[in-house]
């Protein structure tokens, strides 16, 4: 699959129409995959694809907005949903993006992998897909790890692992079997069933930890505002110290801003240094939007986002 990817990218770059391609390459070592920009044919060979390519590349496409030519992108299902949303939100032109769809079979969570394997990631030299498990090479030995133990949360519940709108594709997805009993919104439902007091205590514990490093915002494809309201001085929405009321404000406003736009790529949670379960917050809004307005972000070009639309007979049971 990597060969096919490299061929496509080489061809695209050779055509002179694409200025650069955004994909993944090795970072600090074989165990560490980072996003990379390939602008020259000589660099094409560094592109990789595997189960450690969890990052959402949608954010980087925004950078190519004003470039001369087109920008290429390796798109898993979630990256492709980001592209659809960015086009819908008039941030990029679909014509300016070359989407190379890749069948994603689930991405591994580095932290979970370390925990299950019991060795630091530095010793891992290779992670391969093998149906419903990963084949991991640690030093000389090869071990297998069940996918459901080490997948990123977003991948466990992933409904659309393949891009539906692409210019090139690397093949069809090989279906893999994971625990079907885990419902998509299980984590949200579980919290919803708790009494109010316990929910408050739960979120207070989470928000208290937040150091407001803004990593969640920076990693989010949907946070493209030139001036974020949290950075604004006048009016100042947010006081600087990362105290509970400010943190609560920060996360709730982010959740509201992402209503109907969150594509559940899980980047916020992945990059959080304090391990705050942010997707449980955003998934709640996602669930409500689906339940109340029957809308799912990133799936179609021609549906109207729920909060810029209304029905005359919308329900108002809360009034």
């Amino acid at each position, binding site marked *: 699959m990597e060969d096919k990817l490299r061929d496509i990218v080489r061809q695209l770059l050779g055509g002179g129409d694409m200025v650069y391609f955004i994909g993944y390459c090795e970072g600090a070592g074989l165990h560490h995959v980072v996003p990379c920009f390939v602008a020259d044919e000589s660099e094409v060979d560094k592109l990789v694809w595997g189960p450690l390519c969890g990052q959402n590349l949608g954010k980087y496409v925004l950078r190519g907005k004003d470039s001369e030519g087109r920008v290429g992108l390796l798109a898993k299902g979630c990256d492709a949903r980001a592209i659809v949303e960015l086009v819908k939100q008039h941030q990029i032109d679909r014509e300016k993006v070359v989407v190379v769809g890749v069948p994603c079979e689930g991405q591994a969570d580095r932290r979970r992998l370390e925990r299950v394997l019991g060795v630091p990631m530095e010793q891992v030299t290779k992670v391969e897909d093998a149906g419903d498990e990963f084949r991991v090479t640690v030093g000389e030995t090869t071990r297998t790890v069940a996918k459901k133990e080490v997948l990123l949360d977003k991948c466990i519940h992933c409904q659309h692992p393949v891009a539906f709108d692409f210019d090139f594709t690397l093949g069809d997805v090989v279906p893999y079997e994971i625990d079907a009993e885990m419902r998509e919104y299980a984590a949200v439902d579980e919290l919803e069933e708790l009494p109010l007091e316990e929910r408050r205590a739960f979120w207070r514990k989470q928000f208290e930890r937040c150091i407001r490093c803004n990593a969640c915002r920076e990693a989010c494809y949907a946070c493209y505002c030139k001036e974020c309201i949290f950075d604004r001085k006048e009016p100042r929405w947010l006081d600087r110290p990362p105290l509970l009321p400010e943190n609560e404000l920060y996360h709730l406003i982010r959740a509201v801003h992402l209503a109907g736009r969150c594509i559940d790529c899980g980047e916020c949670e992945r990059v959080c240094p304090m391990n705050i379960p942010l997707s449980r917050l955003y998934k709640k809004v996602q669930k409500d939007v689906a339940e109340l307005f029957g809308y799912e972000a990133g799936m179609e070009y021609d549906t109207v986002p729920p909060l810029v639309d209304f029905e005359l007979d919308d329900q108002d049971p*809360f009034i």
Partner: protein
Amino acid sequence: MALESDDQGGDGFEPKILVFACNWCSYAGADLAGVSRLQMPANCRVIRVMCSARVRPEFVVEALSKGLDGVLVLGCHPGDCHYSEGNYFTRRRGLLLKRLLEYVGIEPERFQVRWVSASEGAKFASTIEQVTKQIKDLGPRRPQRTIQPTGPGER
């Protein structure tokens, strides 16, 4: 204005409630209630906005997280909006926000949306009375302004 309510709870608790009233209906309704000399509790601070859709969710969240005890958004009845469709957006947003606030442990009574038209002075007064009573029963919403250093949690 200090945002936190003055009282420390208990029987003498007087909540501070922020009311956003739409210029064309609810604010006129409040006016009517005043001219008609209707009695209502004095816990509300009214802010006039041009339309209930002007109330960004940020307004509500900020008020609540900075220590106000409740937020009430008043707008025209659906179909009566001065700008034709503003309150339809309020309705969708309000519903989402209310569910979210409830999810993070804020009592649903603390954020309410009501429709009050310009001729409904009595409804304005009774709404204020009702909401004030509900929030009084809940007690103060005191945010904690302490720093508690904690390490990253378990994933």
